[in-house]
């Protein structure tokens, strides 16, 4: 569903339902923007939240929007994928830290439900070790530095060097980078050949500037 020659900007929403609605209608309509329902958002509003995101974004851009459900699945790959697929998500995430059986099951079910599978490599030191063990490859790999890690531990860096390494070995896989927030981080992300840059904090902190911020970031994609 995602074109691997294009670059995308993924915006994660974690505020309350009404605020998110306002923010989405402020966004510039572009199919390069992917809308993510953040983990706290899903845990707060459940699958209803995902379907309303889908509705709003679809109305805004006038076609089927791309919605990512940041499930962070850890167990029961089947049940969770079915729930979000029914709610209208186009992709779901699974933790790279989960048992291998769960990840396998997750990828299999994503394919059978027709959505993209994303493996979140937060706190995984060597993503290759996980990827080698899998039966099938996921569609997208997320290199992720957690928010709490970011706040408490400044010296941990985003593993930009791993992007080319993974692409060199597995070729077709898309790479998404989460955890960088400034325009500089995003430039670095695209420069290092990542396909998707995930941002949320600047939007979370100033929902009123949504339109301006999104345009700034969109300029970086070209």
């Amino acid at each position, binding site marked *: 569903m995602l074109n691997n020659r294009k670059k995308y900007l993924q915006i994660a929403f*974690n505020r309350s339902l009404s605020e998110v609605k306002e923010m989405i209608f402020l966004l510039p309509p572009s199919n390069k923007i992917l809308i993510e329902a953040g*983990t*706290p958002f*899903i*845990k*707060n*509003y*459940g*699958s*209803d*939240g995902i379907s309303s995101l889908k509705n709003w974004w679809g109305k805004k851009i006038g076609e089927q929007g791309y919605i990512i459900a940041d*499930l*962070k699945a*850890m*167990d*029961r*790959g089947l*049940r*969770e994928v079915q*729930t*979000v697929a029914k709610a209208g998500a186009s992709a779901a995430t699974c*933790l790279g*830290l*989960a*048992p291998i*059986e*769960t990840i*396998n*099951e997750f990828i299999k079910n994503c394919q059978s439900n027709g959505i993209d599978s994303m493996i979140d490599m*937060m*706190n995984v030191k060597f993503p290759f070790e996980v990827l080698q063990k899998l039966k099938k490859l996921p569609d997208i790999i997320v290199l992720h530095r*957690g*928010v*709490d*890690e970011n*706040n*408490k*531990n400044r010296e941990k860096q985003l593993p930009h060097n791993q992007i080319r390494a993974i692409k060199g070995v597995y070729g077709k896989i898309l790479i998404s980078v989460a955890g960088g927030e400034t325009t500089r981080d995003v430039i670095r992300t695209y420069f290092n050949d990542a396909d998707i840059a995930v941002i949320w904090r600047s939007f979370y902190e100033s929902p009123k500037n949504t339109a301006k911020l999104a345009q700034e970031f969109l300029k970086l994609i070209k």
Partner: protein
Amino acid sequence: MQIQKKQFKDKLLDWIIFFVLGAFLINPFLGLIAIFGLIFYFFKNKNALDLQLSKYSKSINAFSNNLARIESIHNSTSVRKIFLQNNQLKTLSLEFPKKNLIFKAPQLRLEKRKRYLQVALNNTINEAIQIISQIPYSKRILIEVGTPMIKEYGIKAISEIKQMAPLGSYIVADNKCADLGSREVEMMANAGANASTCLGVAPIETIDTFIEECEKYKIDSMIDMMNVEDPLSVLKKLKKLPRVVILHRGVDESEFSKEKQIPYYQIKQIKGNYNLLVSVAGGDTLREIQRAIFNDADIVVIWKSVYEASENTASLVNEFMKEIK
């Protein structure tokens, strides 16, 4: 059942009132003695009235519960607004369900040296409510709102189950926090959960903030050690200890690779080194529960046998409770 002996059944309370009135009729002095006897009895068994109180709270909360459900179906607050305009809600004092209880339940915490049975609900909300109504009431049964349910319904699932469960039930929110510890704990605590879970594989910084926040909100912190080979090495790195450590074999794991075992020997290892409770999840047969209890686990989690409500649910739970003692 052992637990229910100390609680009054519905009719028993009526009989007691009848008896006291009768005693008054015969002789006021006799009536006074009966009342003092009753006071003494309640002083000794503080739980005796729990069942009645929970029913009482349910009946006075029924209106606001139904209102919340209507709102969630129609996704609007217009119903509430109409009531607020007419000042109906205030006169009924139903606007803040927690405050109108005469007997406010204190924040429940787990106690050491007691054994608990944790019943995990993972199906739909309706199914969960049916199951809850069948489960015998006991302070040693913990009700868990499973991850799939939280992800499907959101925190609505927690507050709804909390309202449907008997007053003073202990609710565990299995949110499996992996990042943003403070946000999730706040959400779960506000929804009415008494405990929240965090993944042991999450970054150490996340687990630290999670435990800190749990203490702030006075709920129990549970660290889920699924897919962690050596739980002790995680515990060593933490600034503060959690209240509970869960040894967990995932559902997918146990389905697709049968040879993986729950590491029962780790229970004693952990309890020997740290002063905390250990919970075991992933075994669902009577035998596995016996093994867990034999190995000194404090909490045993079951889900498969209570996934769907059936006629046997109550007897099944009773059987498990017998094992746990």
